Every structure is written in structure tokens, then in C-alpha cells.
């Protein structure tokens, strides 16, 4: 990865920070209103507002405010949530693990299943199994994450009552060890399934398209001529190449997974970043919204950066290119 790309990432970071800082301050009206939200201000006395403005440094020049904001970020100070009555950073760190667990597992499971089904289906292009899978996943792909979450909740949670309707674990149960793990998994099952189901379709479709296109490549013919076992052609030759677009699109997929998590956590009241941002929006808690935006953006930037860093290892052709 070249210097140019690293600068791209730094620029992206600067844009994220700048948006966070400037957007509320440049909007017409009282910046205090934009930063703290209407509901927070209603209950405040005028003296408290003046005090807050002073403390926030909103009466100082913009550049000085920006500098203070930056040093705040470096120190880990992302502001104070009026709605939840606590430092934003603490709230974020409390929610982040759950979202990482949910999206991380969803990413791994959907990639694995979607990829294998995609390879097997593309290999059998035009046959019954392929057409069945393709049609099935096309339909699945037509259901937005929101709707899939709803269906699962209604069917397995409400109607069948097999899984809890919300939360990440049974409150006040004081479980430990294996039973705690099982409890967590029990709560995780429905939101995770919903997220996997939405992501699996796009992963499958992308893999299948790549595989079908790759099958016409001469090197596949070479492999067949060499007497390579079909299974090895499918995975060593076709699979390895069709993994590339899936890896390249990790960034896009993470964005999509996060979006999905946003809706699904909201539906299942799963205590991750998605639910946090939903509540923040509901409560017009702007410091928290900004905090979530900042943290999620940084996490996705980091993962993207990492993927680009290791990408040349799986696609040797990239080494000689610009990056």
C-alpha cells in the first residue's frame, strides 16, 4: 500500500472528524441547540445555557474550538450524553462489543455459507440446484434487513415463542460459565440469523456471478486438462479467484452489515451501537449521535485499511499496480 492510499485514509478520518465538528456548528440557529438537542435545552435555565456555552467554548473563535475538539478526541473525551446521563465514550464502549459480536459473527457465517453456496451453484450453472438456489436467494435478497428482522421476531419470538424478544442476555439472572454463554447465544440467535440472512444473499450472488464468469476463463480449461479433481478446480482455482471481489468489498459489506445491525438491534432491542444510535436519535441526543458516528467510522476505516493492507497477499497482481 502506497503513501497515497494512506493519505486517503487520513483524509477520510479528517472528513469524519470535520463533519462531526462543523455540521452542528454551521447549521443555522443556536449551535448549542444542535449540539445538545432540543429536549436537553428545554429544562435548562438561561444561566445554565450561558455557562454551558462558555464551558463548551462556543463563544471562542471556530479554529480554537476545533483545536479543543481535536485534543478532546485524543484524550478520549467524546462529550457527555445528556439523555443517558454519562460520558459518551463509556456508553460507546459498553455497546461496541455486542455490535462487534453480532456483525463479526454475521460477516464470518454469511461469507462462509454464501461463498460455498455461490461456488457450488455457479459450478452447476443452469441445473436445477443452481436455478433453485438462485431464485431462492434472489427472493431473499428482495427482503430488506428490516423486514427479515420483523418476520423472524414475529414468527420465532412472538408466535412460536422459541427465542427471547429482546436484549443480549437475561437480566439479573447472574448466570456464569457455560450457562451464561448459552444464554448469550440464545439471545443472539434471532438477530444474528436475521443479519446473516440479509448478508448471505448478496455474498452468494456476488460469488455466483464471479464463478460463472471465471468458469469461461482458459486457466480453468488448463486445470481440467491437467486432470485436477473437480473439487480442487472448484476451490483451488475458481474459489481462490472468486474470493477476491468478496474481500475487496469488505468495506461495502461492513457498511451494509452495520446498517443491518442498526435495524435489527432496534427490532430485537439488542444493546449494541445500533440500538444506541436509535435511542440517541429518539432522544435527540446529539453528542451521542456524533460519538457513534465517530467510533463506527473509525472502526470501519481501520478494517478497510487492514483489508487493503493484506489484499496483495491474496491477489499478487495488485503488487505491481499503483497502490
Amino acid at each position, binding site marked *: 500500500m502506497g503513501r497515497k492510499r494512506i493519505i486517503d485514509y487520513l483524509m477520510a478520518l479528517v472528513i469524519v472528524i470535520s463533519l462531526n465538528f462543523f455540521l452542528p456548528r454551521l447549521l443555522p440557529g443556536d449551535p448549542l441547540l444542535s449540539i445538545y438537542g432540543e429536549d436537553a435545552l428545554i429544562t435548562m435555565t438561561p444561566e445554565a445555557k450561558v455557562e454551558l456555552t462558555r464551558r463548551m467554548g462556543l463563544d471562542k473563535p471556530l479554529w480554537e474550538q476545533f483545536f479543543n475538539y481535536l485534543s478532546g478526541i485524543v484524550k478520549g473525551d467524546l462529550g457527555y450524553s445528556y439523555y443517558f446521563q454519562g460520558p459518551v465514550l463509556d456508553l460507546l464502549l459498553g455497546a461496541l462489543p455486542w455490535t462487534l459480536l453480532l456483525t463479526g459473527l454475521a460477516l464470518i457465517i454469511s461469507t462462509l455459507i454464501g461463498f460455498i453456496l455461490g461456488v457450488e451453484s455457479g459450478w452447476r450453472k443452469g441445473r436445477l440446484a443452481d436455478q433453485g438456489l438462485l431464485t431462492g436467494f434472489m427472493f431473499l435478497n428482495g427482503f430488506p434487513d428490516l423486514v427479515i428482522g420483523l418476520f423472524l421476531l414475529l414468527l420465532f419470538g412472538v408466535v412460536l415463542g422459541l427465542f427471547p424478544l429482546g436484549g443480549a442476555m437475561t437480566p439479573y439472572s447472574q448466570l456464569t460459565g457455560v450457562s451464561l454463554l448459552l444464554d448469550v447465544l440464545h439471545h443472539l440467535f434471532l438477530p444474528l440469523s436475521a443479519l446473516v440472512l440479509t448478508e448471505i444473499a448478496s455474498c452468494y450472488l456476488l460469488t455466483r456471478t464471479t464463478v460463472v464468469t471465471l468458469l469461461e476463463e*482458459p*486457466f480453468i480449461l*488448463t486445470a481440467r*486438462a*491437467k*486432470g485436477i479433481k473437480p473439487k480442487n478446480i472448484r476451490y*483451488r482455482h475458481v474459489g481462490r479467484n472468486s474470493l*477476491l471481489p468478496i474481500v475487496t468489498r469488505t468495506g461495502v459489506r461492513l457498511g451494509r452489515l452495520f446498517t443491518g445491525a442498526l435495524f435489527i438491534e432496534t427490532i430485537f432491542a439488542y444493546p449494541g451501537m445500533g440500538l444506541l444510535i436509535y435511542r440517541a436519535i429518539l432522544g435527540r441526543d446529539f453528542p451521542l449521535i456524533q460519538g457513534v458516528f465517530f467510533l463506527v467510522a473509525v472502526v470501519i476505516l481501520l478494517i478497510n485499511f487492514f483489508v487493503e493492507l493484506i489484499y496483495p497477499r491474496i*491477489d*499478487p497482481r495488485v503488487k505491481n499496480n499503483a497502490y
Partner: protein
Amino acid sequence: MLEIKDLTITYGRNTVIKELNLTVPKGDVLAVIGESGAGKTTLALSLMGLCPGNVEGQIIYQGVDFLSLPEPQRRLLRWNKVSMVFQDLNRSFNPVMTVLEQIMEPMLEHELLSRKEAQKKAYYLLNKVGLAPVKGQMYPHQLSGGEKQRALIAMALTNDPEVLILDEPTAALDGLTKAKICELLKEVFSEKTVVLVTHDLSTAYQLANRVAVLYQGRIMELGLTKDILKNPRHPYTRGLVRSFPTLDATKDLQGIPGFGIEKQEGCVFANRCTQRIADCTKIIPKLEKRGEREIACLRGGVVNLLKVEDLTKVYSGVTALKGVSLDIEEGETVAVVGESGSGKTTLALCLMGLEKANQGSIYFQGEKIVKWNKEFYQKVQMIFQNPQDCISHRLNVLETVCEPLVIQKLGTPEERIHKAKKALRDVELPDEDEFLNRYAHHLSGGELQRLAIARALVLEPKLLIADEPTSALDASIQAKIMRLIMDLQEKRGLSILFITHDLALARKVSDRVFVLKDGQVVERGLSTQIFSLPQHPYTRKLLQATANFSDF
């Protein structure tokens, strides 16, 4: 040993290979040549059992019919018994695996060697094809075209197959690299049974000892490489050779008229063949032995059009021709060269029946000519040396061109005008009324000679005897007229007996040459040979006196 029996390959309704039979004995290198679309790659792939079409017939390696085996068993034979060097060298490697991994893969996959041994053998093979070991650790895109070709060859050799199939191994390479790869292939081919598919005749010539000419999925001609490429006997092979540029060819490039039609009755080449007869579109010719080679042609290959035996002509005690024998094939240009007074014009006149020979016989299309009748003149026409003389000043252009038709009583007046106009267009003269009404003295020398040619062609003859047709013209006009005649030959399969004293010109237009001295043929042979290695002192003398710009 590889045997192909009754191989037929179809894609849907399209038949790509038709009832093909071939035997490649052990150690033989057989080149399959033909235009693109002839079915070469399909044939190559079918030998690997990888042809996606519907394959019928047998492909037998050492007594085992490869095609009848179930796929898992075919897989075991691939690369062990028969391996292939693929055509598209840029895309035949997996882009994300190193070259070495891919070379080792077949040895490991067939569990022939341990990983360590396989690696050792891979490096040995890389060395054998002239690649440094470091190239093995590279990825395909890091290699040059020639290096990729070498790596592909190394990969084909891993499992020591007896049969090697190569699909256009030199197509994507520049001349120098091609030469090096050919050298390498010659070494690699020893002890192997090889099928080499290529459209590059020079590669075939260098590498193969036998050649099969494929057209529309059928073999047209099969035999020893040197025979076939130097002296093609099937009209299609001759077209291929004529359109292939080589350094030693003297005649200009000529193509093959028309293009292949997939569905037709009879001979697949019939629609492009200039010597076809009615049966050609009805009966499918079989590949039959003709001397050393096999030809699939109802007419037995390129036919003999005119044959002259032992022709002698004496004018009042002076012998103008003394026992002259020559022959002309369909679609061929034969030059008769010699200084003035060597008997060239006399020969032309005797052939046309304008002079009666004292001795000897003339055969046209196998029949001995006793009487020069209208039928004969329909098929044989002559262009004279001086166009001013040979066109009557009393006839206008239209009447001049129509005259042969009037004489032969062919067609209605309207049809004659139509034919005349077409003949004029063929020689690139205008066919407007204004021009049709002109008389000879209004025309330039070049226009007059074109008019003479148009008049000769209006009968659509098979043989054109041209006696110094351009000697009265400027070099630039001569060039145009000669190009015109050559084009007509390509389109119609016209045979030309070209009589000239200009050896430089003869070299550019003729397939074969007869050198005439004092009424006798002193040397005869292929133009390529006569002009580069003349045997007779007289020919050498003539050549020395020929126009050239060289300083030595």
C-alpha cells in the same frame, strides 16, 4: 500412438468436425493447419476430452478409446497420457498461483511424486525450457509472453505424457521469440507423439513432419509437410499457401475467394472452389490416396487444364519450336520466358490454333485438340501484345466487347450488353454510355489493353494466354493491369499462360516458369526455385540482364 476414428463434433445444429479420421504414429509430429473457424481448436480440445460440444466417434490412445471412458477415468488419463499447451498464454495460468505451484500441481494431483520430488522436477523442467528458477516463484503476470509460453511447455511435460497437443504455440509471439520457441519445441518433441494445431504455415513447416489441412471440420489434404506446403495439390491448400507471406515466395499474395458456409451439400469447399463441377455440390469427397499424400477432392486435387507434348513448328526450314512440352493447372500462372526469337509467340499462336504445329499434341481438360472450334475458344482466350492492333478502329467500345458473344451466338442483345458491361467493370473501365460509344483511337494505351482483356474475359474462359500484354505500356499502367489479371485469377480460378521477356515481371506473377531458348525448353520449375537457384547457364544469363536496383 494416437488414432482418431469417425470423429464428429457438433454444437447444437452446428457441425464443427465431420467424420474425421487420423492416425498419428508414435514419434510423429502432425500439424493441423487451416483458417480460423476450421475447427482446429475444437479438435485439439476433443483430444483432451474437454470439448464442450457433442462428440461422437473414437479417440484411441494405445488401444484405449478415450471417449468411451467415464469422466473420472478420463481425468486420470489427462496429463499422464496426453497433455496440452494451450493457446491463450496470457489467460491459461491461474493469476493468483505462482508458476511453480501450477507446474507442480499435476504431479501432486495425480500423486506421482512427493511434494519435494515434484518441486525438484519442476525446477528441472524450468531449466529444460530455459527459464531461471526465480521465474518459477513469480506469478504469471510477471512473466513476458515468451517466458509464459516456455512455462506452459514445461507444465505440459510434468507427467511425461506420450501425446502432446499444442494449440497455436507461436501465435502470440514476435518473430525472434517464435524462432526460439520453435527451437525449444523441436527438442521437446523427440520421442513424443505430437499434434500441433496452427494457422502459421511456417511453424508447421519447421516443426511437423506431416500436415493435415483442415477446412470446415474436414481434412482436405494430408501428407508430408514439405510436399504439401511446397506443392499443394488441393485447391484449398494452394489458396492457403498462396495467402501466406514467406520470404522465399516470389508471387504476390493471393487469397481464397468467398468464405466458408457451414451447411452445404457435397464438398465443404465447393462454394469457394474455382474448379468445381456439378458433382462437387452433391457428393462428399473422401480422403483418398494420391501418390504419397491423401486428398479429399472429387477432381483429385488441382486439375490439369492444358497439356502440350512435344510440340514442334518449322517455318520454311527454320525451327521455331523444337519438342516443347508444358502443362498448366487450374488457377495457375505459368510464365514462358526467353529472349525475342526464342519461339514464345509461336508457341502462343500454335496453342490458339492460329498456326498449325508440325508435330506434337495439345490436350485441353484431358481431351486432345484436333480442331480449334468455337467450344475451344470459349474456354481459351488470348491477349495480344499490341492493343492498338488487336482492336478494330471501326468498332466502338461496346461493340468490341460484345463481338465474341456475337460470334459465339451467345445470349440476346440485352444479355450481351449486360455481360459486356460487367466485363468492363471487372477490368475497372467505366460502363457509361458515353464511354461505350468511344472508339479505340479515343482511348489511352492502358485503357485499350483493359478493353482487350475485357473482350477476352467476356466469354469467361478458363485459360488466358497473354503474350507480352504489357510490353507496350508504362510501368505504372503495367502494374495496374497485372494486378487486375491476378485479382481475376483469384476470383475465377483463371489459369494464365504468361509469355514475357521480362523476368522481373514473371517472378512477381507466376507460380511456375518455363525458360525457352531457340525453341526448346531449357529449364522448368517452381518460380521460387528458378529465380533463386537457376540451374541452366542461359537462365542465369537472362537473370543477370534483368532489371534491378542492386549495386552488385
